[in-house]
């Protein structure tokens, strides 16, 4: 992994002893980082580790109480009073999860937005702009035309355009800081991006890489710094590190297993019992002739690439998509294409897009928790807030949701805690069928373990759980069975020992012959 093996004196950026407190509580208690050229340096840590605060300090968004920063060939800067402009002068180049690209504009126009339009005789010189943009793109092996609209690019290329733009001024000693760059990328796009980043590092670029995704950290980064409770818990090479050990470093305790044990006795005895979910010959959206079953007590994974129909399948089971043909039976009864009917039949859906499809941004935690169970909190049509609070409190306790007050706005919670609230909302209905679409997207490793544990418990109490995910590892470890979709068709039903990453990946990419 440590291909470039740069000498110890080769330092692009040295951050020393960063301290930051909010009131009486220290969030960063003396954190130091050393970035070297050609090295991808991962920054890992759970919620509350201080990871985000450190990035904000480096970006000049939050002011540190103390700490220094020294770039290659640059004077030492005090991090107290560090501004965004100072961060730019120090050679730090940030690409955030929201790339800051205007989708309706061309690649070249997006470059010009941050660097200015070249002009000739007062009017924009498009040829010069295209030439200079093309040169920058070429450096990143990006086969993208400067005149292409950003909206027409594939997601990984958009990220690369944002990176190329961030590094466009070509100064020596630049450090690229990537904050969760793959969080919104589909699985196969992630690989494209990671390959490009590895090439960039091989060419000498120093990269600080922030990610929740452990597999990425291990495969991409040469070095990882793990923050925990505001201190550096570990800073080491990734060469001899595995996922379990990294998860333990982040959690600060031995993770017996991030994933709960599978159900004791699957399949055999169930084949006779009536399945909770029966799908026969379903055609809807991209789905073609999909048939599957799910029994009470098991967790069934739905794997497949973007566009394979994972989400459509779950939405059909929730009555939110009208099928063209085929049938869906819940506990033997046909399901009408209506969300309300599906809810009455005991189906619940945790949607993929948490902010767009699940959260009520200006509602409190309590109101977000009880919105699917309002009727039980009403007496003479009067919603009793004591009853709503009690229900929410028990969900918070069951689920270890970290909040300061139940009346707090939902948007103030971390992604992991927001997701727990959405899952808790549906668990209150004691669903017969629980559908989850990308349940751990943007969720940190500890909250993820809580959610997995909870799903296993729910299944054990007799619910059929269906999990659609682009995270193959999640499916391989969490699920009892996995159904693989490819271009709308089921290409494999994996069970028992077949439920493993290689098999899921193989069938996800499999060509037509598989069936």
């Amino acid at each position, binding site marked *: 992994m440590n291909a470039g093996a740069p000498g110890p004196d080769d330092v692009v950026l040295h951050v020393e002893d960063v301290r930051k407190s909010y009131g009486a509580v220290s969030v960063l208690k003396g954190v130091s980082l050393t970035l070297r050229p050609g090295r991808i340096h991962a920054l890992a840590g759970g919620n509350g580790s201080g990871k985000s605060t450190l990035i904000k300090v480096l970006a000049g968004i939050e002011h540190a109480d103390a700490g220094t920063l020294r770039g290659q060939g640059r004077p030492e800067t005090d991090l107290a009073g560090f501004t965004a402009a100072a961060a730019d002068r120090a050679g730090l180049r940030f690409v955030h999860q929201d790339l800051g690209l205007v989708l309706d504009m061309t690649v070249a126009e997006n470059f010009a937005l941050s660097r200015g339009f070249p002009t000739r005789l007062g009017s924009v010189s498009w040829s010069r702009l295209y030439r200079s943009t093309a040169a920058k793109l070429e450096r990143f092996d990006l086969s993208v035309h400067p005149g292409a609209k950003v909206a027409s690019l594939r997601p990984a290329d958009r990220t690369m355009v944002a990176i190329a733009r961030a590094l466009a001024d070509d100064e020596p000693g630049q450090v690229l800081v990537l904050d969760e760059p793959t969080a919104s990328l589909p699985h196969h796009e992630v690989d494209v991006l990671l390959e490009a980043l590895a090439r960039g590092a091989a060419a000498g670029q120093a990269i600080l890489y922030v990610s929740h995704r452990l597999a990425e950290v291990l495969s991409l980064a040469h070095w990882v710094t793990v923050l925990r409770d505001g201190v550096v818990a570990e800073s080491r090479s990734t060469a001899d590190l595995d996922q379990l050990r990294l998860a333990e470093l982040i959690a600060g305790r031995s993770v017996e297993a991030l994933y709960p044990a599978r159900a004791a006795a699957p399949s055999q005895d169930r084949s006779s019992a009536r399945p909770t979910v029966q799908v026969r010959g379903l055609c809807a959206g991209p789905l073609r002739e999909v048939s599957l079953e799910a029994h009470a007590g098991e967790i069934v994974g739905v794997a497949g690439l973007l566009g394979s129909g994972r989400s459509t399948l779950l939405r059909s089971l929730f009555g939110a998509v009208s099928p063209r043909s085929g049938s869906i039976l819940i506990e033997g009864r046909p399901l009408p294409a209506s969300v309300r009917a599906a809810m009455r039949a005991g189906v619940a859906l945790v949607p993929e897009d948490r902010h767009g499809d*699940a959260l009520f941004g*200006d509602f409190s935690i309590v109101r977000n928790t009880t919105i699917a169970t309002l009727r039980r909190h009403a007496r003479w*049509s009067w919603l009793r807030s004591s009853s709503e609070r009690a229900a929410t409190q028990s969900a918070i306790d069951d689920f270890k949701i970290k909040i300061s007050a139940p009346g707090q706005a939902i948007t103030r919670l971390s992604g992991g805690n927001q997701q727990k609230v959405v899952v808790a909302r549906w668990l209150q209905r004691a669903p017969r069928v629980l559908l989850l679409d990308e349940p751990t997207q943007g969720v940190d490793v500890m909250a993820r373990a809580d959610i997995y544990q909870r799903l296993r418990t729910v299944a054990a109490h007799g619910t059929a759980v269906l999990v659609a995910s682009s995270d193959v590892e999640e499916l391989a470890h969490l699920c009892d069975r996995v159904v693989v979709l490819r271009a709308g068709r089921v290409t494999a039903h994996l069970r028992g020992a077949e439920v493993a990453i290689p098999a899921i990946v193989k069938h996800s990419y499999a060509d037509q012959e598989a069936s």
Partner: protein
Amino acid sequence: MSATTLPGAASAEKKTTAKSHVLRSLGERYGLVLLLGAVYVFFSVLPASAPAFPTMANLQAVLGNIAVVSVLGIAAIFPLVGGHFDFSVAATSLVSSITCAALLSDHHAPLAVGVAGGLLAGLAVGLVNATLVAALRLNAFIVTIGTATLLPGIVQWYTGGVGITRDIAQPLRDLGSGTWLGLPQVIWPVAVVIATCWFVLGQTAVGRRLHAVGSNPAAARLVGISVTRVSFLAFVISGGLAGIAGVLLTARNGGGLVNSGVDLLFPALAAVFLGGTAIDPGRYNVLGTVVGALFVALSVSGLTLAGAADWVPNVFNGVALVVAVAISTLLARRRGQTGAEGT
């Protein structure tokens, strides 16, 4: 998770917010109420207005004046909470007022029929708006501007521009100008409307669902709320309340006046937006709207009695509205602010 993983940042935020939170939220909730008290004291003490302002007669006049405006404001809240503007409430109340007066005067209908006719006219307009906006998914902003323009035109055609004031039943006139238990009679039905709407919007599942639709329609659909049905209901309720406002308008004016009502649109909306800064800050709410209406009415009354020039109340209302919208927007934005993810 184990205690060692408790987020430092989260607990830091907890401490700093917990202390200042109570004071700040009290200030947010009752700021406008305090301001209302201050306005009252100011004009009671100010030499120019002191003799007339704090008198029973003036207070009764102020309360009488806010009656219709409050109901119109509340009528506008229902669609607003569900995420839609409704500019037609004032025009609807005009139609309702004219219908009521025309039934009583031109058709010599009994009082109950006149009142029922006024209410039904309001409901009918509400149904039309609801069909266009909720069922056909047209833009509410434009549709209700359309109805707000169309309805006064129809009234003009029907009345020929002449108000209908003959043969208005005496009990209705008494409701408009008489007093009961020391307060204007018209305040009592308005109080019932306020209490009912406060209950429906704030304390029932229907109100909660309407808020949910206004907050995130896509998410509302995925928790089993019928977005169409809830939005439809909001416009029908809005029309019905505008109908009530119309009947009260007939009572206040002693008949149907062709230009009355329509000029109440902006005062009513001003009360709504002012109200968004109080009681339940950052959200449109019933009690806040009443406080907002009272604030504007008291201020205008005080300014008038203090001998301020004609233009002063207008300038005052305009400034109050812009300031109120700025405050309530900033409050809503802060409430919706994303907390540091994974700090």
